[in-house]
């Protein structure tokens, strides 16, 4: 066995120039294969990290709508029932998202002194409230306000700034609306339990309920405590608890009992989004499909987490596919190189194989010798190739990912989200972030195992050919 190996190593370098060339070609193929494997793993890890970050929630929106943008028909209680009947769905929460304008601002606007400014927030509003937004519009808010006004999309037909009467040329004042979410339980629209820091969770979910939860910054701005009151569409609401949503934007909102929110804003029975919990993360994809089918793909959009996440995951998934295909292609190439070179070698050494047989070498010893000879070349190629891969795979993976997110971003840019939307696209790329590749021992061993397996397969055919050489070949001239 040891002597067979020694002979194989010796034979591998009988023709140094050819062996050198073969090693270089193998190194390129194997290096490419390893880089692709590493990229594949890195991307796969990132995908599961991204997926893990949303957990097993699905969000159902009316088709064509997201948040306060877009159109479509609202969802209803019937959809909740249908969604609950879908397999693997463990719970369904319906929420209604509302934007409440501050009453004073509206009053001023209606008085006509500043027509077109206050009303022109993006998407307008669903009702009014006595609460003042805790968030200053700032540059971003004003920019969005302007574009919203220019496009004239306010539900009350607010005129654009160009023909906005005496709003012309003046510095426009504007307050951000307060967002309100109608919930039917203690969970927010993302399926997380609302983090109440003082007071209690909502407990009365009747249409006549006057309970409300207020975000910390909003409560501070309006001097609200547990038990304080404010109005929503002229109805007096009582603060049941103060919550902390984690971000300034979230804390500038309120939670209302769903039925009460529907009634207050005259949207009885309507729901803007469903949050569906799936029993396990493996079933998220299949449930997404069955949920879409159950509710009608023309009526609803079902997304796992945010759309940014979706685009990030789908562009990453295509990178994953590309890298997997490239990995396999490079492996097969390496296998073919081994196959062809060994067939050549066997043909060249027919006579010598005949000698070995004539002096009593069993077929399997000769076959083993040739397989080992091939493996010697492959191992050297693999060592060189892997070294190259270690230094280049990070670059290759990043290049692959950025090329793909660039196309995904361009595609997204052409559809819908133009102008002064909510920060536009590019969120997918942000989610992907910088892809760092690490070559773990597991990946390395797995890749090398695959390379050796393919090489051995490639060497088997030539080895089998040696079995067909007859000992009498020894008497033939070359």
């Amino acid at each position, binding site marked *: 066995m*040891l*002597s067979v190996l020694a*002979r194989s190593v*010796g*034979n591998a370098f*009988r023709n140094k120039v050819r062996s050198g060339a073969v090693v270089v070609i193998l190194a390129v193929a194997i290096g490419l294969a390893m880089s692709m494997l590493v990229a594949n793993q890195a991307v796969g890890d990132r995908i599961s990290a991204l997926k893990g970050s949303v957990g097993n929630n699905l969000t159902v929106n009316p088709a064509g709508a997201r948040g306060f943008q877009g159109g479509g028909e609202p969802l209803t209680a019937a959809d909740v029932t249908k969604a609950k009947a879908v397999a693997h769905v463990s719970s369904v929460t319906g929420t209604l998202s509302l934007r409440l304008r501050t009453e004073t601002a509206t009053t001023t606007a209606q008085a006509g002194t500043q027509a077109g400014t206050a009303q022109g927030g993006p998407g307008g509003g669903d009702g009014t409230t006595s609460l003042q937004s805790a968030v200053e519009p700032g540059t971003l808010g004003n920019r969005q306000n302007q574009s919203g006004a220019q496009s004239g999309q306010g539900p009350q037909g607010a005129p654009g700034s160009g023909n906005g009467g005496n709003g012309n040329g003046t510095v426009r004042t504007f307050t951000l609306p307060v967002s309100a979410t109608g919930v039917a339980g203690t969970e927010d629209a993302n399926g997380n339990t609302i983090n109440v820091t003082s007071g209690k969770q909502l407990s009365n979910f009747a249409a006549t309920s006057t309970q409300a939860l207020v975000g910390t910054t909003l409560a501070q701005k309006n001097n609200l405590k547990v038990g304080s009151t404010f109005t929503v569409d002229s109805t007096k609401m009582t603060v049941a608890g103060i919550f902390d949503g984690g971000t300034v934007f979230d804390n500038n909102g309120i939670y209302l009992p769903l039925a009460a929110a529907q009634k207050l804003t005259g949207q009885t029975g309507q729901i803007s989004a469903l949050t569906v919990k799936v029993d396990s993360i493996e079933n998220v994809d299949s449930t997404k499909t069955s949920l879409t089918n159950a509710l009608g793909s023309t009526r609803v959009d079902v997304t796992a987490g945010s759309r940014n996440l979706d685009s990030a995951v789908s562009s990453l998934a295509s990178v994953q596919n590309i890298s997997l295909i490239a990995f396999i292609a490079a492996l097969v190439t390496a296998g073919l190189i081994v196959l062809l070179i060994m067939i050549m070698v066997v043909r060249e050494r027919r*006579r*010598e194989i*005949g*000698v*070995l*047989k*004539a*002096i*009593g*070498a*069993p*077929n399997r*010893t000769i076959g083993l010798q040739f397989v080992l000879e091939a493996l010697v070349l492959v191992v050297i190629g693999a060592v060189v190739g892997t070294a190259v891969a270690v230094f280049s795979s990070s670059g290759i993976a990043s290049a692959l990912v950025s090329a793909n997110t660039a196309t995904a971003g361009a595609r997204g840019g052409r559809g819908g989200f133009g102008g002064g939307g909510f920060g536009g696209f590019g969120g997918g790329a942000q989610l992907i972030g910088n892809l760092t590749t690490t070559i773990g021992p597991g990946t390395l061993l797995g890749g090398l195992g695959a390379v050796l397996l393919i090489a051995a397969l490639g060497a088997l055919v030539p080895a089998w050919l040696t079995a067909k050489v*007859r*000992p*009498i070949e*020894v*008497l033939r*001239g070359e």
Partner: protein
Amino acid sequence: MLEVRNVSKQFKSGDHTIKPVNDVSFSLEQGTFAAILGKSGSGKSTLLSLLGALDKATSGDVMVDGVNVSTLPDGKLTAYRRNDIGFVFQQYNLVPNLTAKENVMLPMEFARVRRSERQARAAELLEQVELEADVHDRKANRLSGGQQQRVSIARALANNPKIILADEPTGNLDEQTGELIIELLRSLTRTQNTTVLVVTHDMALARKTDRRFRLAKGSLAEEFDRSRAR
């Protein structure tokens, strides 16, 4: 005991067939030193390859100690070539990128002899064919024709075969070294009771053998003449 019964070998070349070995029969007692003589192209190498199971006869049987070699399965044939036969090829056929010693060790490796033992025996055999120690570790393709021929002989002796089939074993050797090889082969028939069958044009060698056969037109005939070297 080597028995050859009605062995024929025919080759098809183009539209006509040639029969270099045609209905050959003879037998050799164990320990016989025998020679096959004949013109070039008369089929001597072909006959030897049939006896050494390098090739299959078109018809006829080769019996070794009562075992019909012609009907053995491939696995047994390999063992037969390895353990019972020592073949000295006309073209030497050493493995070119192995050293002289490694070439001699090869048959022993296939016979699963321990490495240290292989090395010792290979060195000893090479000494016997008068190859000095500095040649032992030289690659076979760096050896002269006569040196290669002697390595080939040493290799044939490696597994102590019952039968040695040598195709012109002295063809490339000077008179003195040829003598030595003849003596070596002859002594094997005496001390180890090895059957040695040589193909030769060398009359010095032929004269030392116990029996001589002449192959002509495919037929083998034994020659009896006055100068027997017994």
